[in-house]
């Protein structure tokens, strides 16, 4: 909690004949984050080379490619597939030669045959299309072929053509969607003259299909063949579909099995090896070190050397795994979007997971909208699969629950009041003249400023904690801590000066002190001094930072968005209600007529559209502004990020087991 999982750097060394066993054991443990070995021209690295893959790597890759291509053909994916039972690895291994090989051969044959048939069907289809225009000409197909002294022209023309040489001509006028078709037989010696006459009429020749007998019979024949082939294709497809439902479980299991085999076989590519030995370096969670050493020793019967190394002082080297209570795990999504925490840094996930829903609730405090979002966060689970989607919906669920709680406190239901008065400061606006009193805007704004002051103070204090617990101790650590305290001192100094000049409700009133000089009283002097000390501390760390001093005020005031954005959402809801209920529906209900019913329905449409839009705006406003307050105003006070993701060597098995 508040810091990432503790990691230890370990080194595993052994002789090459143990490599297979050790790799398998490490993979099984699924905890070893391998630090890739990079060859260097350095004496300390002399004799070390990047390792070669274990035996069987390329065969397994080939199998994997076959399986993946079958999966993509069947349209299945291991990410979305669900299976009733897991397959055991030995059973899968035993089945490679007969079960899998037969399946692969079967499917490959079927698909090859299918594409062959499809090509045939396409060729026949082309023949049928080519024959079609000849159907209207009263000649058998054999009459077009086999002449020595006669040339045949066939093709489309714009209009009928006069041929200036002896000829036999068949002109078929086109209809809708068909062009005029022309067949001309001329003596071979006159072919040129006929050709030029035809070209003038924009004649487009078509190839004359082979065949003999009546054209219509030929077309009928071809169509029959096409139907037969299509039937065969359908049969193959049914067959493949059957195979898919029968073997998809097995396929994803084999996918997982071979992925594991390939990953294990290729692991030595990340190790340092010599002629006879190998060395692997990496990270494991500290609490599992003992167990992993014991497991490796057991697996190799003691023929392995494992030792812990110093973790060094570069926090960016250490892989980072979150360590949070289950409640906060969905919020890790927001942390990863910004940047994963560094190893030695304060991990604010838990804080964000608590504060974010509260901010969201403050902005969208409405029982109606909260309930709609709560239902949506469960209903959308069907469509948003995958871990990130589920986490997002978990966050939405928490936020909408807070929204309902604040809705009860604010007494709001789709912009209307609930049967009780607002328990905390009311946000009901005077729209349509219903409200008895004005919204308590000033009080709400002041509360939001308080939230800002406390949130930012917390951020600065966390920065102090980060500096004092950094792995790499900076020479300027003291100065940096003083600078952070300086920022705090300046901020609270400004606040005290304001308190001493104006009496603000809900804040401390310091105007009562006797004036000392220049209209300042004792309290303001304290404030001014605090501010000046702060500025000196900030300037001591880096004079450039002094430019940032105005952000003290703008960042605190930025928290007023909690109220401002919330009020705008209340206003939209109330205006929608006023337009739809009071202006459109209300007057019609007093004396209902046929037209009136239509107008009432129209009013309902306006009501629904208005509230749907406002719900969407509510998610955007409530979500984006709340997360922005964290990213911009809170995180910039202490958070660096840039941690490396912990990616252990191994996999979480879904479909297979040892």
């Amino acid at each position: 909690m508040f810091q990432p999982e503790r990691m230890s750097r370990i080194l595993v060394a052994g002789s090459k004949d143990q490599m297979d066993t050790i790799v398998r054991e490490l993979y099984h443990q699924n905890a070893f984050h391998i630090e890739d070995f990079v060859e260097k021209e350095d004496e300390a690295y002399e004799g070390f080379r990047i390792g070669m893959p274990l035996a069987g790597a390329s065969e397994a890759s080939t199998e994997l490619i076959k399986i993946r291509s079958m999966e993509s053909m069947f349209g299945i994916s291991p990410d979305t597939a669900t299976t009733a039972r897991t397959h055991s690895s030995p059973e899968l291994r035993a089945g490679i030669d007969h079960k899998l090989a037969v399946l692969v051969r079967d499917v490959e044959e079927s698909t090859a045959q299918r594409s062959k048939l499809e090509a045939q069907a396409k060729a026949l289809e082309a023949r049928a299309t080519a024959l079609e225009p000849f159907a209207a000409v009263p000649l058998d197909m054999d009459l077009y072929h086999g002449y020595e002294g006669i040339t045949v022209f066939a093709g489309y023309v714009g209009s009928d053509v006069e041929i200036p040489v002896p000829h036999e001509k068949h002109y078929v006028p086109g209809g809708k969607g068909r062009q005029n078709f022309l067949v001309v037989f001329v003596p071979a010696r006159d072919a040129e003259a006929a050709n030029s006459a035809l070209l003038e009429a924009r004649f487009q020749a078509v190839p004359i299909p082979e065949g003999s007998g009546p054209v219509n019979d030929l077309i009928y024949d071809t169509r029959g063949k096409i139907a037969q082939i299509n039937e065969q294709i359908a049969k193959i497809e049914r067959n493949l579909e059957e195979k898919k439902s029968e073997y998809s479980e097995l396929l994803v299991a084999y996918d997982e099995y071979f992925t594991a085999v390939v990953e294990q076989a290729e692991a030595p590519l990340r190790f340092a090896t010599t002629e006879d030995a190998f060395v692997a370096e990496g990270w494991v969670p500290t609490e599992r070190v003992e167990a992993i050493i014991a497991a490796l020793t057991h697996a190799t019967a003691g023929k392995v050397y494992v030792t812990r190394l110093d973790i060094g002082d570069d926090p960016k080297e250490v892989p980072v795994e979150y360590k949070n209570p289950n409640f906060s795990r969905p919020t890790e999504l927001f942390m990863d979007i910004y940047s994963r925490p560094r190893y030695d840094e304060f991990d604010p996930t838990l804080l964000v997971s608590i504060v974010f829903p509260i901010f969201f609730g403050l902005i969208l405090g409405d029982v109606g909208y909260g309930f709609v979002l709560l239902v949506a966060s469960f209903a959308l689970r069907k469509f948003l699969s995958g871990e990130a989607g589920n986490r997002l919906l978990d966050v939405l669920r928490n936020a909408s629950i807070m929204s309902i709680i604040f809705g009860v406190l604010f007494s709001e239901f789709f912009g209307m009041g609930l049967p009780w008065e607002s328990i905390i400061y009311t946000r009901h606006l005077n729209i349509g003249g219903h409200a008895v009193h004005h919204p308590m805007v000033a009080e709400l704004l002041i509360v939001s400023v308080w939230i800002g002051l406390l949130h930012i103070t917390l951020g600065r204090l966390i920065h102090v904690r980060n500096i004092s617990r950094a792995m790499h101790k900076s020479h300027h650590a003291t100065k940096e801590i003083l600078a952070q305290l300086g920022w705090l001192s300046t901020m609270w100094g400004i606040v005290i000066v304001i308190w001493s000049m104006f009496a603000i409700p809900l804040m401390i009133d310091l105007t009562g002190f006797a004036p000392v000089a220049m209209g300042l009283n004792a309290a303001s002097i304290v404030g001014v001094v605090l501010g000046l000390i702060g500025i000196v501390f900030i300037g001591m760390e880096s004079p450039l930072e002094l430019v940032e001093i105005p952000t003290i005020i703008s960042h605190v005031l930025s928290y007023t968005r909690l109220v401002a954005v919330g009020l705008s959402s209340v206003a939209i809801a109330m205006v929608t209600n006023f337009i739809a209920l009071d202006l459109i529906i209300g007057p019609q209900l007093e004396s209902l007529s046929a037209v009136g019913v239509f107008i009432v329905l129209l009013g309902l449409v306006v009501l629904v559209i208005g509230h749907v839009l406002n719900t969407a705006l509510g998610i955007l406003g409530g979500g984006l502004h709340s997360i922005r307050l964290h990213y911009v105003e809170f995180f910039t006070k202490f958070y660096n990020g840039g941690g490396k993701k912990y990616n252990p060597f191994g996999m979480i098995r879904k479909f297979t087991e040892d």
Partner: protein
Amino acid sequence: MADPVVAEMTLEMVQASQFGLKAVGAGLAVGLTGIGSGIAEMGIGAAAVGATAENKDMFGLALLFTVIPETIVIFGLVVALLALF
């Protein structure tokens, strides 16, 4: 001597026009700051989308940059609320 009825009417009118000016001021505050944020976010947003397209990891940072000028319109909204109530 002014007619007392007329004087009362005038006072109401003055109050109404005062409120009207407040409303105009509030509208200007939100509208102008909205335009300001929009202009500021225009360039940042375009660059942010480009950066995210190049490298998905930029998304968090890009979002952060894009919403920085949002504060301007929030201040406008706060000023408008303070003017109205």
